[in-house]
């Protein structure tokens, strides 16, 4: 209970409960292992009117170690159609991988993903989506993504 992650997350939880950034809402945070957040892109974008769920999974070393973040895909939810988002909900974003920094936070990640969606020009799946989804590990942190596209 007194792990680094629980102390830090309880602070983040307090902040999210008092003031969530626009377009982001806390859906479920009953423990310090897994949180669900809702995000939608405000203003004009290809995702107008759509909303998505993000699942954050924390290990006790958070925020030194990055959270595992993916879009929720179930009978009611889909991952956004985006060149960096696989249909299983896995996201190819450098800040979730080798550009993670412990000064980032749950809300910073949500805002980054929001802007990743907002700047999207064409709704499509990443190249090789089917192959990736077939062989992908359950935990997206185990995937070694190549961050080759800085434009989106």
């Amino acid at each position, binding site marked *: 209970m007194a792990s680094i992650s629980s102390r830090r997350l309880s602070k983040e939880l307090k902040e999210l409960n008092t003031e969530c950034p626009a377009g982001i809402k806390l859906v479920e945070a009953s423990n310090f292992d897994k949180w669900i957040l809702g995000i939608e892109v405000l203003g004009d974008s290809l995702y107008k009117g759509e909303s998505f769920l993000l699942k954050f999974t924390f290990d006790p070393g958070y925020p030194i170690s990055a959270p595992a973040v993916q879009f929720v895909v179930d009978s009611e939810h889909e991952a956004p159609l985006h060149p960096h988002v696989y249909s299983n909900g896995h996201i190819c974003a450098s800040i979730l991988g080798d550009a993670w*920094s412990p000064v980032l936070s749950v809300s910073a990640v949500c805002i980054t993903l929001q802007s990743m969606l907002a700047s999207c020009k064409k709704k499509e799946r990443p190249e090789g989506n089917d192959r990736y989804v077939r062989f992908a590990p359950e935990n997206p942190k185990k995937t070694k993504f190549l961050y080759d596209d800085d434009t989106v």
Partner: protein
Amino acid sequence: MKVTVKNWHAIAHWRWDLGANEPENDDIDGEGDVCGICRVPFEGCCPSCKMPGDDCPLIWGECTHVFHMHCLLKWINTAASKHQCPMDRRPWVTAERTVAKSKPTQEPPLANAPPLP
């Protein structure tokens, strides 16, 4: 009128001297400066410590960013850090800082008071 002081109660207050490049401060949240890694005020201690002050000191980078030393070391000792400052991703170089050199600020002398036990 004659006043006799029967007893008195002294209260001391300490703060880390964050140096000159820390102006009037973007202390918007009224929380004081917090360590970007653990989000605990600098005057508090990192999650691994029980006692703030000298036992849980701060560390300054050449890039001017400040953290609890223990927090920063936890990060720097991971491969993922690539030995970069968490704030600006510049290579982390610990800045030399000696408390004696820090120039006194406009604050009353208690700014120099030693950390409470």
